[in-house]
């Protein structure tokens, strides 16, 4: 076990735990904060995997932007939910979920099944044992790839973003006008 391994292990555990809390915490604002922590953890994993640029982008986009707008969204819409549900016992909640008429055990089955299926596939696969030497200059690497090989997807993504932007504004404005 090298230092890197230990660090990875720690980061992975933090990430997974915060992800678990996103799903299970009863206060929605807490969930948003746990989500932010998850994003930071993922950024750490990126760093360990040698994807410097992506790690930076992860922090900027997810932690800086998405978590923030989610928090804004919560504050603008779910005022009642801010306080959370009456019981805080995990097992109580889990059992209440599992016995809920509509959801029952099936979502758990689906989630565990998907994860298990992926683990099975991964464990059976033939994987390269050692990683390649990490690229030293990932921003350059990605930049060149984006503007050469992937220029058309890049432009398409730009348009997707533009449309999303306009769509979001339009959706938000619509109600204002009618009022």
């Amino acid at each position, binding site marked *: 076990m090298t230092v890197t391994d230990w660090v990875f292990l720690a980061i992975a555990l933090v990430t997974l735990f915060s992800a678990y809390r996103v799903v299970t915490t009863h206060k929605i604002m807490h969930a948003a904060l746990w989500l932010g922590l998850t994003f930071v953890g993922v950024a750490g994993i990126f760093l360990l995997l040698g994807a410097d640029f992506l790690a930076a982008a992860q922090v900027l986009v997810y932690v800086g932007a998405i978590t923030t707008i989610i928090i804004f969204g919560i504050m603008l819409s779910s005022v009642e939910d801010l306080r959370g549900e009456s019981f805080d016992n995990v097992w109580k909640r889990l059992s209440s979920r599992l016995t809920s008429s*509509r*959801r029952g055990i*099936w*979502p758990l*089955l*689906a*989630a565990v*099944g*998907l994860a298990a*299926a*992926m683990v*099975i*596939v991964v464990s*059976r696969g033939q994987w390269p044992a050692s990683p390649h030497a990490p690229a030293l200059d990932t921003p350059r690497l990605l930049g060149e790839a984006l503007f050469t090989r992937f220029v058309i997807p890049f432009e398409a993504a730009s348009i997707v973003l533009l449309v999303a932007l306009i769509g979001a504004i339009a959706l938000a404005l619509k109600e204002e006008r009618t009022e």
Partner: protein
Amino acid sequence: MAELAWLIPILPLASFVFISLAGQTVKGDGDRVGVAAVGASLILSILVFVDVLDGARVSADFAWAFFGGTQLRLGYQVDPLTATMLVVVTLISFLVHVYSLGYMHGDVRYKRYYAILSLFTASMLGLVLADNLLFLFAFWELIGLCSFLLIGHWYEKRDVGFAALKAFLTTRVGDIGMLVGIMLVFFHARSFQFDAIAEVIASGQWVGPALAAAAVLLFAGAVGKSAQFPLHVWLPDAMAGPTSVSALIHAATLVAAGVYLVARSYAVFSAAPEALATVAWVGGITALFAASIALVMEDIKKVLAYSTVSQLGFMMVGLGVGGFTAGVFHLVTHAVFKALLFLASGSVIHGVDTQNMHEMGGLRKKMPVTFWTWAIGSAALAGIYPLAGFWSKDEILLSVYEGQHTALFWILVIAATLTAFYITRATLLTFFGEPRDRRRYEHAHESPATMTVPLVILAALAVVLGFANSPYSGYWFARFVYFDHPHVPEAAGFVLFWATASWVVGVGLAVLVYGFGLISRRAVIDNLRPVWVLLKNKYYFDELYYLVFVRGTVALARIVGWFDRVVVDGVVNLAGYGTAKLSRATGEFDRDVIDGAVNGIAALFKAGGAVLRRLQTGYVQSYVLALFLTVVVGLLVFAIG
């Protein structure tokens, strides 16, 4: 010039189009356009004629349609026969056009008259130029149509409309035969072209009864068109049309088309002696019996009509006995002097406003030009030397004599005598004696120049035309128009004697009866009353046809009607009743079984839908859950398998 022959019918056709579409925009409803067009055609025809005299022959055609390996070709040909006919048709047509300027002046349908007259001229010229039977038949029907339209010019009068219909339907009887004949010819010769047909016959590939049958069937068309016995009944009635029309169509051109048809397809006829005999005998019978009817007619135009029928019979005899040139020559001379007689009679009618000769009399002083031209025309018809009729009739008699057809010869001699008698009778009744109708006599006047000038021209031609085929010109016409090879009959004193005797007897008797009254008309009639009644009633042909065809048709229709009512209607009603029953049963089956099945299926789906719609909860998460579970199952199957 002969290459431009196709222009000759085009000019009157253009005039027809112009007059009918835009006639009212010019002065006189375009009558002068018609006159000018036909005049131009006349000049062209003369130029073509001169060219043909110099030996020019034109034949041009193009492929029109293809049937399997056979092609239909349309085209025109110019040979001596065509050239002659072109000149005759355009000349008479032109003179009639001019004559009509005066005769039809102020008519209610002046424009229509000139339009149809132009169309008729164009069609007749096309018929003459056609180089194949099919094309000829098309024009044949066109002139029939024009004849119908012109006879019915004053269709307000009930009789006029019926006369037009009668003419159309009667000729149609012959046309059916002609059409069958054309098919027969095509079946054997594989062509409609006259020269191709002639080749096939000349090569001896086609002999036997079918050939004779084809010829006789073609002759049926000629019988209808040329008003030969027994389809002659329409021509006298056709006199209901304007007299100018009678002159053009029912004396000179249309009725001559039948003769022309026989002449044009003479190759077919000459190869079938039975057909030639038929032509000759039909012609002979027609010549005699029509002349006999003309003896007693009181209507001046009816006299001329029966005279025309009779003279056409003469032509048929000429062709039938092998005298091709004689028949055609008589056609030409007859066209001239009969048109002259008709136009002159038109002038008389114009002057006294009646057609009944018993209401005329003494008109020679009032209408000198008309009288003198009429006199020349009637003399030509009677066959008085040296007028046109003498030469052509003499020629026919010679041909008959040469062919040793004794019976036919005597028939023609009697017919010629009768001809001389009835035309002299008409002349005396009309122009001599005391005026029998004072009021009409006072009213009578000479016709305008547009009418008299054509009369004078025709009269001059009636005098000189005969010399074209006389010893004085070396039988020039016989050397120009002939079939196979030129044939000049040798003059025979026997024939000359009887020809002369016939007109001397005929004219003499008529003068004795109607001129000097030495023989009492009354006495003759009383002594020969049955004959007189028979003639007066035109041998009861109209009555016979009425009885056989009209009443027969009505009776047949009655029988068919009864059959229809009782048998056919019975079957139909039975079928209807059965169908109604059946449909009622089917309706019940439909309602109970088919509708039941359809409704049952619909109910099944409705029930299924009611169950299945529970799955559509409307909750997005349910849908996504189903999605993911499916993926899990799929992955597990994939992973295990």
